[in-house]
């Protein structure tokens, strides 16, 4: 009688066709253990079965690329034989079920991905998205999810000893009950000391190192590959529990063991634990593996082979040592009081053989589990062309009687623009003494002690733009990411991405996904920033309601000389303020339309248009800014995005470390644009810069034919903006700054 019933197959998230394929591969009925291995390896989370046909279009090559996608993290060259390894990964589903541990283990997982490559993590960031905190129905839940996630990230990163230096916190209705937690980490490694997750060398011993295996997280990968319903909280046991102290020990022990030269390959046990790490290592090397589960360190008794293979206990690694040198590895781990046990060996052929209590529990062809995993060209359908509904009406966006000062203050205090200090103050952003630009800027910067260089980085997303137009929206996000790096004086060099989407089984979602891939590709090619790592997270929906499609772009930039870094604050009275780029009429999907005029996200998406992006102009503006920075002409540079030029200028006026707030007098003139558009339009490709007045001619010379206009000067302690000769805004900086600074804290602490 068959042990594998249709119910069991369904419980494992496998379709009938997928099971038929398993039968064909195995040539017999699989054991329940084997079925478990197939189920996690073929889950959306591990196999990328819906996205692989599209991901291949992303540009992944370039002069600096040392390790392209496919390894635990991508690696790029930053010169002088130093490289950086980085990646962003989602932990959305676990963070909804159990915010603290979900977010904490998200940080833990991405840190392991980075130090598995031999790189010491030197910076972390997070892109977080939540439902509105004042939502009538879900507000309290959204608050508790936010607090839990922030607490979890702080708990893990602070103890581990990596500075959390940036990221974003965004609010929208679509993230109610569907929070997004995308964790990024970056490490530094010498070019000749990069390690790979390959099970190379027949006869080499396979070591299990780190934490003991328990029953936590079994089927976590399968959980992350399904949408949620009311029973989501029953899935709590699939979320793992993190131990950052143990991870710290694991980091130090791994790096020390790597230096010994005794390690041939190493891979972290993340999603699908021992199963995916062993299968992937063998697949990359084209070898077979034999493992004896009796030898695996366990913290619970009576575990079956099935449970051990599928456990997602944290802080574990699989290491292939060089034959005869396993003792050196064991000794290093012993020094750090960690388990390190030989549990098997690399063998010839293509079979994964798992023994437990004398039985052969699994015997399966490795390539069939990985390369032959299902790959779907899911149906795609573009949404029906918009029936241009009349809201927001074009004239509605242009009230002539509005109080612009009040609008500006409202924008500055709005959830997506206000200071996120309440969040990042809980992260240790300075440990390792490299953080040269602290959180809250366009991009964060860490210097590289071993060189004169520094690395900048930022995470950006914009679900609204992508929802309106996936291809153009994705391009806008990549452009903003690049611009954010440029604003600190860094040249963008490479990208990692995290593609957060609802169910891929809906054709319009899949169409959007494909469009996003093409948009990212086009923009990354323009900026010469290859995509070197990334992650896809589908099924971000609860009770049938999905998130806005949200690709998160992690862009990394390089400063050749850390002394040339630029900050966003205006510096000296009398300095000139100028705009690089052009302001167009881009209000229809803006923070202004939402916050000041009160349109819902659905209304904006229904009738709005994304700002028009000209990649050539964008590149010209960025190159100009970099040239000015390189010639030491800039006192400040700040990206102009959410909230438009008014918000950008106000933020440049606000105080920062060692710098008091300063005022500005601005005069904007454009006969073709009304006041609202001039102040709050979100046209891309714009940077607000400031420089000493006597440098104007030098600046102009470098600017050449790039759109450029002097719009005012640094003066006093008020912000005064006149539009076409008429004063529109006059406000004390102190009042504006106070509104911006206290908004989030007031919502969360009261």
């Amino acid at each position, binding site marked *: 009688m068959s042990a594998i019933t249709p119910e069991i197959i369904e419980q494992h998230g496998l379709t009938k066709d997928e099971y038929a394929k398993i039968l064909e591969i195995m040539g017999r009925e699989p054991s329940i253990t084997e079925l478990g291995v197939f189920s996690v390896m073929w889950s959306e989370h591990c196999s990328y079965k819906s996205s692989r046909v599209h991901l291949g279009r992303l540009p992944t090559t370039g002069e600096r690329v040392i390790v392209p996608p496919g390894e635990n993290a991508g690696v790029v060259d930053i010169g002088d034989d130093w490289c950086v390894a980085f990646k962003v990964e989602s932990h959305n589903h676990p963070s909804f079920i159990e915010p603290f541990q979900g977010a904490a283990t998200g940080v833990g997982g991405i840190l392991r991905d980075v130090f598995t490559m031999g790189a010491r993590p030197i910076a972390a960031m997070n892109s977080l998205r939540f439902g509105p905190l004042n939502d009538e129905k879900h507000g309290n839940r959204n608050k508790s999810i936010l607090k839990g996630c922030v607490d979890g990230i702080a708990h893990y990163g602070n103890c581990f000893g990596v500075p959390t230096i940036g990221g974003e916190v965004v609010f929208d209705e679509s993230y109610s009950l569907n929070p997004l937690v995308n964790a990024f980490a970056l490490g530094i490694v010498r070019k000749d000391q990069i390690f790979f997750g390959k099970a190379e060398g027949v006869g080499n011993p396979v070591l299990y190192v780190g934490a003991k295996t328990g029953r936590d997280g079994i089927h976590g990968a399968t959980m992350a590959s399904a949408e949620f319903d009311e029973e989501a909280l029953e899935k709590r046991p699939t979320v793992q529990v993190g131990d950052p102290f143990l991870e710290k020990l694991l980091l130090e022990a791994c790096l020390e063991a790597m230096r010994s030269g005794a390690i041939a390959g190493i891979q972290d046990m993340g999603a699908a634990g021992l199963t995916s790490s062993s299968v992937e290592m063998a697949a990359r090397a084209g070898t077979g593996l034999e493992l004896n589960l009796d030898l695996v360190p366990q913290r619970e008794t009576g575990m079956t082979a099935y449970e051990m293979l599928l456990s997602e206990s944290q802080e574990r690694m699989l290491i292939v040592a060089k034959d005869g040198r396993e003792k050196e590895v064991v000794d290093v781990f012993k020094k750090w009081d960690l388990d390190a046990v030989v549990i098997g060996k690399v063998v010839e052929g293509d079979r994964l053989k798992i023994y437990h209590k004398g039985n052969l529990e699994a015997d399966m062809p490795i390539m069939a589990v990985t390369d032959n995993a299902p790959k779907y060209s899911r149906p795609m359908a573009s949404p029906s062309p918009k029936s241009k509904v009349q809201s927001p009406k074009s004239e509605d966006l242009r009230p002539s009687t509005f109080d612009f000062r009040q609008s500006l203050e409202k924008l500055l205090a709005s959830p997506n623009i206000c200071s996120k200090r309440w969040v990042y103050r809980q992260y240790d952003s300075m440990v390792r*003494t490299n953080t040269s630009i602290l959180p809250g800027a366009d991009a964060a910067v860490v210097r590289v002690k071993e060189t004169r260089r520094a690395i900048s980085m930022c995470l950006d997303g914009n679900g609204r733009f992508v929802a309106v137009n996936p291809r153009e929206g994705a391009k806008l996000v990549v452009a903003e990411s690049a611009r954010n790096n440029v604003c600190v004086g860094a040249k963008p060099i490479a990208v990692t991405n995290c593609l957060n989407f609802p169910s891929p089984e809906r054709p319009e979602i899949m169409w959007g996904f494909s469009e996003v891939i093409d948009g990212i590709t086009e923009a990354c090619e323009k900026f010469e920033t290859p995509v070197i790592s990334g992650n896809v997270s589908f099924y971000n929906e609860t009770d049938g309601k999905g998130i806005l499609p949200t690709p998160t772009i992690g862009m990394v930039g390089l400063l050749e000389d850390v002394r040339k870094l630029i900050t966003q604050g205006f510096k000296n009275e009398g300095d000139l303020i100028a705009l690089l780029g052009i302001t167009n009429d881009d209000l229809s999907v803006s923070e202004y339309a939402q916050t000041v005029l009160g349109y819902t996200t659905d209304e904006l998406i229904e009738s709005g248009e994304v700002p028009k992006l000209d990649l050539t102009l964008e590149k010209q503006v960025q190159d100009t800014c970099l040239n000015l920075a390189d010639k030491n002409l800039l006192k400040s540079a700040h990206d102009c995005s959410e909230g438009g030029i008014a918000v950008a200028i106000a933020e440049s006026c606000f105080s920062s470390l060692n710098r008091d707030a300063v005022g500005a007098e601005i005069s904007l003139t454009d006969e073709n644009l009304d006041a609202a558009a001039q102040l709050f339009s979100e046209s891309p490709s714009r940077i607000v810069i400031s420089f000493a007045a006597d440098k104007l001619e030098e600046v102009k010379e470098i600017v050449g034919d790039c759109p450029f206009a002097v719009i005012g000067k640094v003066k006093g302690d008020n912000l005064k903006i006149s539009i076409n000769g008429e004063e529109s805004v006059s406000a004390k900086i102190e009042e504006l700054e106070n509104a911006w600074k206290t908004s989030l804290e007031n919502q969360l602490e009261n």
Partner: protein
Amino acid sequence: MKFGVLVFPGSNCDHDAYHVISKHVGQPVEFVWHKQTDLSSYDAIIVPGGFSYGDYLRCGALAKFSPVMQSVKEFAAQGKFVFGICNGFQILCEAGLLPGALIRNRDLHFICDFVNLKVENQNTPFTSEVEKGKVLSIPIAHAEGNYVCDDATFQSLEENNQIVFRYCDENGEITDKANPNGARSNIAGICNLNRNVLGMMPHPERACEELLGSNDGRDIFRSLTKTISQI
């Protein structure tokens, strides 16, 4: 002159202290593993920040039992210099080298931010080189930096001028608003009666370069090296 920087398995500011001593203070420095017990070659020991043994119990509660801390006690008893920063301060309190204890911050959050410090006693080996009246800008990064002690201890700290640093505003005023964590009487750092053991919650090793926002921390390291060189 030689510095030793203790390394507990969960120390994470050990590299930062080492970097500052070797690069900015310009003195010989070595890491000292937590299982090591011979400290005879050092003039000063830095107990760095971090999470010593994970600190899932009270911060520093396990560290006080470590082999190296037994030696640090003897080292301090000989009058040699011991400097605890952040987790190091917590460990020195747990180990009984300094009075009082550090509990959860008033608002229960981890706080990482620059704070202002008033030097209350310039007559210590750690502060002798700080310009009189200067307000130091130095970052904190802790969840448990709320200094507490009983009234008798507080009185003796005051009488003996053992309060070395207090949180203050940018003008040097000791206000409740300038107190980031609820510490008793804004206490940020104290020394022992003999003045050779100092513990402070702020991180002077993070404030030794303009690039990082401040170099006020150098004053403290400079004071210590000058004191040692005059012995």
